[in-house]
């Protein structure tokens, strides 16, 4: 099999590929979100101790997981960009940052509206919440650093270093509920133990999590297309794109 996968490391090849894939991921996200919310709101039972307030879980956990996961993916592309000086990898990292920031902001927001009825407070300087707030600031820092540097290749390297250094925060968030005595509860779902929740609640949470995952991929693909055009404009291949013809 002579599949030259690295062919797709070229922005000219990846631009139409991303345009073809993004709508499928967006449609998958919409379908999974509809299914997950149906399970979460119509089928899953009322929680014995939290009442209906627990239903925030179907949006809080997916956004919180994605906030962490997108950061790791951004750090991965940043590492590739640094190691191989690969333009497209840096563009992928650049495309992921705003979506990751949005996920972190939503995780904090939905957490606040879950914390108020269950713990009696919108916010506490608890280890998990504080480290998630730092995650949001890291995303915003990466975005701000890029806009502060005019030369895109220098911005790529600076942002990649910041993204990689900041990656140490992700395990801190994940293990914060174990390492410190936090107001935030411990993990309800882990790879090593049986889930501590009803199976319909778990199903709804997993389906909405896959929806959030698919959405993050779609958004990143759409954004990387805009970034490719921004950074490759003036090159011969961009001028030959079908959407460049006509008035």
């Amino acid at each position, binding site marked *: 099999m002579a599949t030259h996968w690295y062919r797709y490391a070229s922005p000219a090849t990846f631009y139409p590929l991303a345009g073809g894939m993004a709508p499928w991921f967006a449609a998958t996200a919409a379908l999974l979100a509809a299914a997950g919310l149906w399970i979460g709101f119509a089928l899953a039972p009322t929680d014995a101790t939290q009442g209906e307030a627990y239903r925030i879980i179907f949006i809080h956990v997916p956004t919180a997981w994605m906030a962490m996961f997108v950061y790791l993916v951004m750090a991965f592309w940043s590492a590739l960009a640094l190691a191989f000086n690969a333009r497209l990898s840096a563009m992928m990292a650049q495309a992921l940052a705003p979506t990751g920031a949005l996920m972190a902001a939503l995780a904090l927001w939905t957490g606040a509206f879950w914390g108020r009825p269950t713990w009696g407070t919108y916010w506490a300087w608890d280890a998990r919440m504080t480290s998630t707030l730092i995650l949001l600031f890291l995303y915003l820092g990466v975005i701000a650093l890029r806009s502060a540097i005019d*030369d895109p290749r220098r911005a790529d390297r600076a942002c990649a270093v910041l993204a990689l250094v900041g990656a140490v925060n992700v395990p801190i968030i994940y293990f914060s509920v174990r390492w410190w005595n936090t107001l935030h509860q411990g993990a309800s779902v882990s790879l090593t133990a049986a889930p501590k929740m009803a199976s319909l609640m778990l199903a709804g949470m997993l389906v909405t999590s896959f929806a959030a995952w698919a959405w993050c991929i779609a958004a990143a693909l759409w954004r990387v297309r805009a970034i490719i055009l921004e950074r490759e404009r003036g090159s011969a291949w961009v001028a030959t794109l079908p959407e460049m013809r006509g008035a």
Partner: protein
Amino acid sequence: MAEFLAMGGYGWYVWMSYGACAVAVVAEVVALRARHRRARAEAKAAGVEPAPERMETAR
């Protein structure tokens, strides 16, 4: 329906959470479309020219 919206007295918390996420997704779609449209218009205006990135790799 009213009972569903009330969420057993937790309606404010539940719908503020889901409402913010719905607004965020719509806002992201709008922003993505606007950014792509702008990038396309600027690329069209630029035509073919030696881009700064290319000159750097040639150095």
